[in-house]
């Protein structure tokens, strides 16, 4: 308890982030149980009702309960982001470490490809990819992985190059260990920490990216209650039914805020050399 | 008015209450060059910081008083302290490579200092050139348009000395000003510094590791150890017959002379 209070005083924003993420997880797990209505129960008689005791956050244009849809959309929205980040971290670490280990032509070609991918605005590339693959949640996630991957590959490669020249890896190589051995026993374990922190810092951006694709219509397709899609479908009722877009957007912002603040906190704890956030 | 009088100064670290300066008393007279020597961590630099009202965060003045040209620093308002720094006291930093702003021309940085010292706008260029010429810097007009990275370390330190003396301050604190310089530049910078202080009649507190330099150019030597003043006397006396064991130990490092083997009666400092 006192440790908590100390954390609160030393880094109030970071603590708020941790709290928000916990609340988000709690909402994703308990929300569907608490909701009074199923997320897809159409009740045309009760369409576009403002928030009330019966429908906590109001109803949409088909009379569906906004709270229920928000609660059922939490898990997919969150899992989609975590899935993308998990994939980019894993793939990025492996590709980066390989590239560093192989060196030579393969490494040079890989880095030029990264340069090219980074030369196109992320959202534009994701849009073009998602559009080419066809609008669906899976394709949107694939597009996001492609867009976020280059940064992770670069980071992993740079870190692997540093690690490779450290005495323990040098020694293992001199002792006759093969590339695979060095990769598995020396590079990957040491890379994991920094890559996971970087991944955590990226969760918020991916949540927002997925929501933006959903908003444009390139993500999860209706009637899925993915949050970005919820904001989009409420868009045309903004004037008389503000609750439709307001709450999903607010939920998105709080989720992203939580992960951003938590990411700062973890980075500060693990890497005190960097200028700590206040 | 005596440029600097410190009496019974005690400075502690706030976190653990460790005493860093312990009941220090010293003074610097007008026109006097006083050398402050001691090992690293003995509190020399901290004394200079305290004398210009710039104790690092986390440190606290527990007791004692500091008077700069008759003005007590304790409880001085920010504006008054700033004014004191503009006209009465200046500090020269150790490393000339980092003490000048890299993106600002020498002339502009000199003009900033002259401006707060009350020099009218129209006179600043002429004054700045005169100051640089006094420091025997070649082609002052050209120098004013230079950026710091285009100057050598010795030249930069001379620019910084010129700045420090620009308002004819009563007191100048020089913190290891030759340490970061090439050996070839040290003697010249040292000579210019002392010469300038004597010309202006400023009191100069010369903090250094370089015992040879201190002996060579100081009227009086102070030796600090463990936050306390252990020795205070004319250079010849301190170097010839140091009274305290700490001073003897420190001076033993000086190659040119042997420290007397026979311990002299310890007089508890000669303040």
């Amino acid at each position: 308890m006192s440790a908590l209070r100390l954390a609160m005083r030393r880094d109030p924003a970071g603590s708020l982030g941790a709290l928000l993420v916990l609340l988000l997880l709690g909402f994703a797990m308990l929300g569907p149980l608490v909701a009074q209505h199923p997320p897809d129960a159409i009740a045309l008689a009760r369409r576009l009702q403002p928030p009330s005791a019966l429908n906590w956050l109001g109803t949409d244009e088909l009379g569906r309960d906004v709270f229920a849809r928000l609660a059922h959309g939490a898990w997919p929205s969150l899992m989609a982001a975590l899935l993308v980040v998990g994939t980019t971290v894993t793939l990025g670490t492996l590709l980066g470490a390989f590239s560093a280990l192989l060196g030579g032509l393969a490494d040079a070609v890989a880095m030029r490809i990264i340069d090219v991918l980074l030369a196109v605005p992320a959202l534009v590339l994701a849009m073009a990819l998602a559009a080419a693959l066809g609008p669906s949640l899976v394709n949107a996630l694939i597009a996001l992985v492609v867009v976020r991957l280059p940064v992770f590959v670069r980071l992993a490669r740079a870190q692997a190059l540093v690690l490779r020249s450290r005495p323990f890896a040098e020694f293992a190589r001199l002792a006759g260990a093969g590339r695979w051995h060095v990769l598995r026993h020396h590079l990957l374990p040491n890379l994991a920490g920094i890559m996971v922190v970087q991944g955590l810092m990226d969760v918020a951006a991916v949540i927002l990216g997925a929501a933006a694709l959903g908003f444009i219509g390139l993500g999860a397709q209706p009637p899925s209650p993915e949050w970005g899609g919820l904001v989009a479908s409420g868009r045309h009722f903004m004037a008389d039914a503000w609750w439709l877009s307001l709450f999903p957007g607010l939920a998105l912002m709080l989720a992203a805020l939580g992960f951003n603040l938590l990411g700062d906190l973890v980075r500060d704890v693990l890497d005190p050399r960097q200028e700590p956030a206040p | 008015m005596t440029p600097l009088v410190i009496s019974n100064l005690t400075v502690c670290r706030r976190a653990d209450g460790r005493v860093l300066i312990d009941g220090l008393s010293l003074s610097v007279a007008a026109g006097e060059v006083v050398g402050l020597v001691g090992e690293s961590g003995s509190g020399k630099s901290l004394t200079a910081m305290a004398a210009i009202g710039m104790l690092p965060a986390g440190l606290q003045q527990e007791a004692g008083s500091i008077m700069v040209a008759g003005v007590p620093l304790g409880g001085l308002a920010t504006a008054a302290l700033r004014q004191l720094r503009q006209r009465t006291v200046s500090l020269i930093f150790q490393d000339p490579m980092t003490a000048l702003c890299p993106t600002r021309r020498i002339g502009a940085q000199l003009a900033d200092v002259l401006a707060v010292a009350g020099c009218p706008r129209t006179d600043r260029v002429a004054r700045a050139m005169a100051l640089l010429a006094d420091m025997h810097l070649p082609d002052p007009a050209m120098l004013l348009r230079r950026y710091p990275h285009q100057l050598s370390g010795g030249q930069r330190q001379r620019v910084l000395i010129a700045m420090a003396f620009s308002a004819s301050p009563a007191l100048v604190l020089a913190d290891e000003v030759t340490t970061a310089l090439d050996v070839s530049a040290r003697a010249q910078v040292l000579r210019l510094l002392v010469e300038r202080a004597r010309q202006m009649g400023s009191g100069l507190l010369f903090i250094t590791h370089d015992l040879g330099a201190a002996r060579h150019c100081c009227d009086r030597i102070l030796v600090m150890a463990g936050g306390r003043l252990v020795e205070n006397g004319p250079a010849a006396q301190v170097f010839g017959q140091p009274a305290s064991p700490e001073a003897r130990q420190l001076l033993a490092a000086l190659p040119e002379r042997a420290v007397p083997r026979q311990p002299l009666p310890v007089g508890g400092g000669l303040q």
Partner: protein
Amino acid sequence: MLRRLAATLVVLLGVSVVTFVITQLVPSDTARLVAGDLASEARVAEIRQELGLDRPLPVQYATYMQRLARGDLGVSIRSGRPVAEELAEALPATVELALLAFVIILINGLLLGSLAALAAGRWPDHLIRLLSTMMISAPTFWIGLVLIALCFGQLDLLPAGGRLSPELVPPVAITGLYGLDAMLAGQWRLAGDVVTHLLMPALTLALAASGSAARLVRASLLEVLQEDHVRRARVAGLSEWVVLTRYALPNALVPFITTAAILLADLLGGAVVTEAIFSWPGLGSYTLEAVAGLDFPAIMGFTLLAALFYAAANLVVDVLYGVVDPRLGPA
């Protein structure tokens, strides 16, 4: 410099390959799209041959590059007009929006970042950190909707979209930026109308980047404030304002330049969502419509243009560094 230019060209070439590959991923049949749903199989095959879609991929790419070298970005599938022409028409609106957003970001970043750094560790710092992180965390599209609902729907202060009120005639094109053109022509009421239309989209577009800019300036400034030359300036009795504006900020902003240039390129190439919400007739809206209509020549044209902005921004950064940091400039 020549090597940088060469590297830039290689990257742009790579982008052209990427965009080309993406179009090949499309499951839909371009020829069918052009011909329309009602066209006969024979007609579709004819179009396929006309567009060269029946030839092997490398040949198609070579043809594409040949035309690209002449500045020909192909013909839009939706309108049948040259993509280059359509992009050129949409560009000024985006430039106008991006420039205003850019200015807002710089001001926000400087103000919030400096304030936070000067109050480091105290409550204004915590507050600004929370605020700037909230800016980064807010979904752009949602903020746009909320602004419209508030400023247009509830308060009726600002128009909801478009570049100009429908009853007004655009100013004579000089720069293509309505605001600037109107002012140059002395049409002040027109300029005012342009500004009211610009305000909300520019704010929306600027929000997230303002947060990042504030954080960046804060971190950079905190570092510089600890440096010797800043401490020396303070000890010399210079006022806090002079220390901040002439000694600390100029140095703190050097690393910010890279970010700023890339940011401008990003604003030019990434205003898709904002433009869509505010019906802003710029590159973003154009691209979104192209995506909806699977108009791949248009999408590729835009992607290439965005990459071009990035490449140009990187070159500008190199030049700017020399100007801002005298250590890197010509001796």
